[in-house]
C-alpha cells in the first residue's frame, strides 16, 4: 500500500518536472521564430527601442517592400517552379520503382535498394564538381533543367525506399485479383495500390519539399552567373547586404520563406511523422 502511494508521488513529481522542462524547451525553440515574425512587423526605429516584444504598430508594408526589393519575388517563383516540378517527378519515378521492387518479382530487390541507399550517403560535393562540368558542356547552366533534374534524382533513393516498404505491406491478393480482373499493371498500380499507401505519399512529398525548397549548395553553384535563375535560399543570403540595416524588411523576407512552410506542414506533420517512423525503422 505504502509503495503504491510512493510510486504515485514519484509519478506526480515527474509530471511537474516534465511540464517545466518541456515548457522551457518550447520557449527556446519558439521564441527565435516568433522574434523573426515580430521583427518583420516593426519599423527600424522600433527595432532599436523595442527589441524583444510584440510590435506596437504592425508594419504590414514591410512584406510588399521585401517582395519588391532585390528580386525576392522572382526568386520565390523560381523556388516554387523548381521545387514543385522536382517533387512531382521524384514521386512518380520512385513510386513506380518502389512498386517494382516491392511487388513485381525483381530478384535481389533488397540489394538494389541498399545500393541506392548507400550511394545516397555520399556527400553532394563529391558529385557537384563533375556534374557542374557536365552541365556546362551541355550548355544547361542557368536553366531550370539544371536544378530540376538533379533535385529529382537525388531524392529518389530515400523516396523509393519508403515506397518499397509501404508497398510490401499491401496484400498480394488485392493485386492478384485486380490483375485477374484484367487491369493493366499501370492501372492496378494507380487505382488499386496507390490509394492504400497515402501516408507514404505524404511522407515523400513533405520530405522532398523541405529538402529541395531549402537546398543551397547546388543552387549556388549552378546559378552563380545567372541572376534570373537564383532560388530563394541563394537570394536570401545576398539579401542581407542589399537591405542594409532595414531589419523589418529583412525579417519580412525571411518570413516569406518560412511561414508558408510552417503553416503547410504544420497540417501534414502527423502523416509525415507517422510515415517517416514506419518507413525508416521497421525492417
Amino acid at each position, binding site marked *: 500500500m505504502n509503495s*503504491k502511494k510512493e510510486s504515485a508521488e*514519484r*509519478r506526480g513529481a*515527474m*509530471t511537474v*518536472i*516534465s511540464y517545466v522542462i*518541456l515548457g522551457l*524547451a518550447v520557449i*527556446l*525553440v*519558439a521564441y*527565435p*521564430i516568433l522574434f*523573426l515574425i515580430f521583427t518583420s512587423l516593426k519599423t527600424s526605429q522600433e527595432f532599436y527601442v523595442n*527589441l*524583444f516584444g510584440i510590435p506596437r504598430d504592425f508594419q504590414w508594408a514591410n512584406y510588399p517592400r521585401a517582395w519588391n526589393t532585390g528580386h525576392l519575388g522572382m526568386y520565390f517563383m523560381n523556388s516554387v517552379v523548381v521545387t514543385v516540378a522536382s517533387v512531382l517527378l521524384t514521386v512518380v*519515378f520512385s513510386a*513506380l*520503382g518502389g*512498386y*517494382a521492387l516491392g511487388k*513485381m*518479382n*525483381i*530478384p535481389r530487390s533488397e540489394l*538494389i535498394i541498399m545500393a541506392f541507399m548507400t*550511394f545516397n*550517403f*555520399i*556527400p553532394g560535393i*563529391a*558529385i557537384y*564538381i*563533375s*556534374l557542374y*562540368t*557536365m552541365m556546362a558542356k551541355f550548355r544547361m547552366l542557368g536553366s531550370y533543367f539544371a536544378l530540376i*533534374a538533379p533535385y*529529382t*534524382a*537525388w531524392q*529518389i533513393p530515400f523516396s523509393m525506399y519508403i515506397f518499397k516498404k509501404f508497398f510490401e505491406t499491401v496484400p498480394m491478393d488485392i493485386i492478384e485479383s485486380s490483375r485477374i480482373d484484367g487491369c493493366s499493371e499501370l492501372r492496378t498500380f494507380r487505382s488499386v495500390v496507390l490509394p492504400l499507401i497515402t501516408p507514404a505519399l505524404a511522407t515523400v512529398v513533405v520530405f522532398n519539399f*523541405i529538402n529541395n*525548397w*531549402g537546398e*543551397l*549548395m547546388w543552387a549556388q553553384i549552378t546559378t552563380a552567373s545567372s541572376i534570373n535563375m537564383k532560388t530563394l*535560399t541563394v537570394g536570401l*543570403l545576398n539579401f542581407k547586404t542589399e537591405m542594409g540595416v532595414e531589419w523589418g524588411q529583412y525579417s519580412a523576407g*525571411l518570413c516569406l*520563406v*518560412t511561414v508558408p*512552410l*510552417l503553416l503547410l506542414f*504544420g497540417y501534414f506533420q502527423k502523416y509525415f*511523422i507517422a510515415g517517416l*517512423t514506419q518507413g*525508416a*525503422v521497421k525492417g
Partner: protein
Amino acid sequence: MSKLKGKNIYLAKGLLFLLPATAVYVFFAVIPFFDNLILSFHSWSGFGGKEFVGFSNFIEAFRDKNFLLAIKNSVYLGFASSLVSVIVGVLLAWLLLYVGSGIGGFFRTILFSPSMIPAVITALIFSFVFEPEMGILNRLFEAMGLESLKHAWLTNKSTVLNCILFVSAWKQVGLTMVLCFAGMQSIPKSLFEAARMEGAGEGAIFLRIILPLVMSFVQLSAIFALMAGLKIYDTVLALTNGGPGKFSVVMPMWIMQNAFSFNHYGYGASMSLIFVVIVLLSMVLAKGVVKGETYEL
C-alpha cells in the same frame, strides 16, 4: 509452366517500372561520382586539357592546413551535434510520456518545427541572436545585469564552433525526439505498470526498460544527426562564412572554394573523395558504438 511465364512477364514489366528512377539517378548521381573519381587524379583549371598527376592532389590535401582544419571542424560538429541532439532528444521524448496527449501534441509540433525550416534560414535567424551589438543574447545579458557574459559570439575563437553546434542541434533535436517518442509509444503500458508495482522508480524504468527498447530508434536518429553534422555547410556559411579568418571552415566549404573560386577542379575532386571516406568511416564507427538491437514486442 504458364505460371512461370506469368512471372517473367511481371519481371519484365517490373524492370520497365524501375527504369526511369534508375536512369535518372545513374545519370545525375552515379556517373558524376565516377567522373569525379577520375578527375581527382588530374590537375584541371576548368579550361583546356586535364593533366594526369597521380596521387599528388591527395598528398597536397594532407599538407593543406585549411583542409586539415576543415576535417577537424566537420568531424567535431558531426559527432558533437549527434551526441547533443541524441541526449536532449531522448530526454525530451521521455518527458513527453508524462504529459497529457493534447498538450504533448502541441509541444511536439513546436519542437519539431525547426526541422521544417531551411538551414540557411535558421542560421540567418541565429545571426540575429548572436550579433554583438543588437543581438538578442547580448541584450538579454545586459538587461539581466550580466555584462561580463557578453561576447562577440561568432567572431571569437573560443565560442564560434559551439555557437554553430548549438544552431545545428537546435534544428536537429526535434527529429530525434519525434523518432524516439514513436519508439517509446509502441512499448506496452503494462510493462511500466508491472515495474511500478515492483517498486521501480521512474529513473530506473527509463534506464532499464525504455532505453533498451528504443535503441534502434536511437541508433537511427544518431546516424541522421551525424550525417547532418558532418555535411554541415549552409549553417556555417550563413553564420560565419568560415570565420573568423578560416577558423570555422568546414569540409564542403573549403572544397567549394577550391573548385569554384580558385578553379582547382582536380584538387577539389580529390578532397571531396577524402570527405566521402571520412563520412562512410564515421557512419560505420557510429553503427558500432550505438548498437541498435531489435526487440520483438
